[in-house]
């Protein structure tokens, strides 16, 4: 690796100042993507700004309204070991446990997973399905955007010069709601999704009040399939309706053929995974009924 400097600021203000003054600086959380890309010569920053000593970036807490505040640099292991996350957002705990292996999970963060902006990022469809909002800080102050608006292309995000993803706000689970993420990989662990699908639903009076479906690895960015959720709204959670929503997701996918799978296989997988993720999300919503 080429020479770079290292800074470990203790406050968000200090980190933002370092990023604003050094256009060739990169934020550094778990490093499980960043250091690999630097070694491969794909990135050569002059300065790494370590985010792991900044309180806001390491926050994992529920506020008074029950919203989960998740710092961008919190490693996966802290997410899936947290009892509140396991109880109220099990799909989030599961995906944190699915990324990489144990030593990766000691370091890798969901903020890093999002900022790396790989179309195959496992945690992003889950965050989208759960209506997570990104908190972004920068030279012009703070702004908030929905996770589905964050990635603009492979490796590309909405972050402007000097901007930093601080964390996520994930709304409290509604009564009778559930979520699930499923992916297809040749190997159970340590693999990258050929395709993935996340679903979240809320049941009310025997019908689906709302649903959200988001996909991994089948478009240039993680993909929210609004038409699948819109179609399910106010409908009974029947096999037939689930199949139709899965068909809409299949049609919305824009997969490519690469070393991990063909476009045709991926499109097929989207249908299967969306159907199963919806079934499991609905089963969870039934269990969560008050």
């Amino acid at each position, binding site marked *: *690796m*080429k*020479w*770079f*400097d*290292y800074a*470990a600021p203790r406050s968000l203000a200090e980190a933002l100042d370092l990023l604003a003054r050094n256009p060739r600086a990169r934020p550094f959380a*778990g*490093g*499980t993507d960043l*250091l*690999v890309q630097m*070694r491969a010569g794909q990135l050569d920053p*002059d*300065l*790494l700004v*370590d985010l*792991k000593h900044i309180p806001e970036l390491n926050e994992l807490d529920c506020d008074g309204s029950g919203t989960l505040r998740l710092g961008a640099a919190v490693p996966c*292991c802290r997410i899936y070991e947290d009892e509140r996350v396991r109880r109220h957002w099990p799909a989030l705990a599961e995906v944190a446990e699915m990324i*990489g*292996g*144990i*030593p*990766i999970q*000691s*370091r890798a963060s969901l903020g890093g997973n999002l900022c790396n902006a790989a179309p195959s990022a496992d945690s992003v469809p889950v965050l989208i399905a759960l209506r997570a909002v990104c908190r972004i800080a920068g030279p012009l102050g703070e702004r908030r955007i929905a996770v589905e608006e964050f990635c603009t292309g492979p490796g590309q995000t909405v972050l402007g010069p000097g901007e930093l993803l601080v964390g996520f706000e994930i709304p409290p689970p509604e009564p009778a709601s559930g979520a699930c993420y499923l992916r297809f990989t040749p190997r*159970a*662990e*340590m693999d990258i999704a050929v395709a993935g699908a996340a679903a979240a639903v809320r049941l009310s009076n025997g019908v689906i009040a709302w649903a959200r479906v988001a996909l991994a690895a089948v478009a240039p960015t993680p993909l929210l399939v609004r038409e699948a959720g819109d179609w399910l709204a106010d409908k009974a959670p029947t096999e037939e309706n689930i199949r139709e929503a899965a068909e809409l997701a299949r049609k919305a996918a824009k997969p490519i053929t690469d070393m991990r799978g063909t476009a045709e296989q991926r499109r097929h997988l989207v249908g299967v995974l969306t159907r199963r993720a919806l079934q499991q999300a609905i089963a969870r919503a039934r269990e969560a009924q008050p």
Partner: protein
Amino acid sequence: MTREKVRVQAIVNEQPVEFLCEPRQSLLECLRDILGLTGAKEGCNDGNCGACAVIMDGRLVNSCLVLGVEAHGRRITTIEGLARGAELHPIQRAFLEQGAVQCGFCTPGLILATKVLLDRHPDPSEPQIRRWLANHLCRCTGYDKIVRAVRKAAAELREVRA
């Protein structure tokens, strides 16, 4: 850029250490090239093989994906820190007895992964063991003997604790 080396103070294998390193040096390079602890191995150097795994503040990490400067103020355990003098740690003994060591390249990482697993889950199921060791590649013995060694070590450590 300043191009200045950074002073790092850490606890490595229960001993305070102090060293100078370049920010670009991984913890693995610092352990091997500066501190002379060559137990952690460089396999893939990108987080896939687990040969470089060490324990940092109770968590298993791939030392190739940690910067040496990040070790400042942290507690690191490498394979060199497991045996007590000539007496092997029960996990090390189990790996030998079960034939779970052949060329030995993956062994330090696997043994440290087993240590963290058994510290947290004294009686792991086989699927749990296999999941915990999924980040470690062994190209010699295959994994059955390794899994057997982990179960043996778990049983032995439970007996010691009881």
